């Protein structure tokens, strides 16, 4: 990845970042909920979370909400450290490989879901160019999270 200005159109990222950080509480819950509903096999990692039997059960599940918050806080960190994603996520990558045993494919799924949530929230403002910028960010995060897998 190149410098922020080259690889990511920073003005667009900056605009969505500002809104993203202010509205973080909106995105954490709904992104994780959407992942578990649209791609139900991702629930395999959350057997200890309790009731995931229906979309409304998932939406009301406090552990899903808490985990979503954790994950989205990490995304927020990613946006602030776009030139150092692999370093920023090195420890988390090791954790997901060695302890959590999460297939890295899931990082791509969550990234795509987050993009859908942003599109839903921002509507027409989420132009193709903004989508392109954000897909690059989530792809970068997914790669960084998979980087330490062995």
């Amino acid at each position, binding site marked *: 990845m190149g410098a922020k200005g080259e690889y990511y159109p920073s003005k667009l990222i900056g605009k969505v970042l500002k809104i993203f950080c202010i509205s973080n509480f909106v995105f954490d819950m709904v992104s994780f909920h959407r992942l578990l509903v649209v*791609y139900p096999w991702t629930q395999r990692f959350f057997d200890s979370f309790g009731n995931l039997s229906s979309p409304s059960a998932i939406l009301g599940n406090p552990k899903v909400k808490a985990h979503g918050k954790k994950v989205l806080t990490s995304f927020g960190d990613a946006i602030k450290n776009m030139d150092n994603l692999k370093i920023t996520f090195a420890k988390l990558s090791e954790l997901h490989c060695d302890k959590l045993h999460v297939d890295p494919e899931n990082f791509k799924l969550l990234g795509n879901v987050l993009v859908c949530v942003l599109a839903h929230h921002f509507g*027409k403002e989420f132009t193709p160019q903004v989508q392109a910028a954000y*897909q690059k960010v989530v792809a970068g995060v997914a790669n960084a999270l998979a980087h330490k897998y062995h």
Partner: protein
Amino acid sequence: MLSAQERAQIAQVWDLIAGHEAQFGAELLLRLFTVYPSTKVYFPHLSSCHDATQLLSHGQRMLAAVGAAVQHMDHLRAALSPLADLHALVLRVDPANFPLLIQCFHVVLASHLQDEFTVEMQAAWDKFLTGVAVVLTEKYR
């Protein structure tokens, strides 16, 4: 296999698209080319100049085919057989590209329809489009 609920949700999604095939189809293609530039190789006549008329025309055609698939969601293989032949013998779009198109489709619907495009509808629509992609690439070998 689609449940009765999924069938209803897919039909609901189509009701929201019907009448806007050209507009949604053109935006779908524009997002595909912008977000995933490598996909442009499959649309040389469209992707170099982003001509609005051509995008609308091709978008209309693609979404009309999706609409036909919705009408025949229990008989996709038969209904999409000519398109499957086209993809296998002529277009030969690498199967890895269909998830990219599907992601852009979700983004078009989410950004235009917002609350009308619920999470449950996205789940059913994703399952349906993934099934369509499987049928379209089934004759590749």
